[in-house]
């Protein structure tokens, strides 16, 4: 995966989380993985199509998701209900949207698909022949892992 793709996702993840949460946010060391990945309880997936294709996954545990959704709604949510799901989904959409905007300024043309959210236990993501970049982000409300896998269209 080309390095130019990576920074916009790292920056938008940190900046959008800071803006919507109004809290300190810290990026941990980025890593690359090429095997199937276990994911936490909640995964938001946004697809990318165009000159570059792939997907971005935002992965977090249930408690963190509830904390973040509560903060973004300015009310305490106790269940991971439709509103909480929509909130976390929109967070993924906003982060991806900003990264795609930046990449488009750099000359890469592509679009995003409406995000989807998956919830469950012991989920695993397998992408065939596509390397994923993992960007872990620590917030006061818990950890969010941003998992980016992109490749140029053959």
């Amino acid at each position, binding site marked *: 995966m080309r390095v130019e793709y990576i920074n916009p996702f790292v920056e938008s993840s940190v900046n959008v989380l800071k803006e919507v949460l109004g809290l300190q946010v810290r990026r941990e060391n980025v890593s690359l993985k090429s095997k199937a990945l276990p994911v936490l309880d909640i995964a938001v997936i946004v697809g990318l199509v165009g000159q570059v294709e792939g997907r971005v996954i935002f992965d977090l545990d249930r408690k963190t998701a509830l904390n973040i959704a509560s903060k973004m709604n300015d009310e305490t949510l106790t269940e991971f209900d439709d509103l909480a799901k929509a909130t976390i989904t929109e967070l993924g959409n906003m982060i991806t949207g900003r990264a795609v*905007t930046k990449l*488009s300024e750099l000359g890469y043309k592509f679009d995003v698909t409406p995000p989807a959210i998956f919830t469950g236990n012991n989920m695993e993501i397998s992408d065939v022949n596509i390397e994923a970049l993992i960007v872990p982000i620590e917030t006061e409300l818990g950890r969010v892992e941003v998992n980016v896998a992109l490749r140029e269209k053959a």
Partner: protein
Amino acid sequence: MGDEIPLGDKGDGTFYKVLIIDDSVFMIKQISQILQSQKFEVIGTAADGQEGIDKYKELHPKVDLVTLDITMPNVDGITCLEKIIEFDKNAKIVMMSALGKEDLVKKALLTGAKSYIVKPLDRDKILSRLKSVLSNTN
């Protein structure tokens, strides 16, 4: 905004009526709360572009203002914008999208959107843009 007249007040004892088109219930809630705090009346919501077109036609000519998302299932926001403008060239539509790509912003404004706000949204961002949209078009 203190004791000032709320932005949603038309000044004739009535309030601006808004249609919100967004596939996220979170966004609909957030936009509604911000608008209602300034006395705008949310008279309809739609969860995709097709529903948005249908609702606009159904509520016409009561809708004073539309907020329109872009990345939505079925019919996207740009197509929805084109269809609403085709139906009513005077529609006041404000795009609200997570995507701020220049070509998309240009396309929306050339098609007839009055403003383009990039998410994440906040109260000040929305209200200052709506203020300029409402003062430019009245």
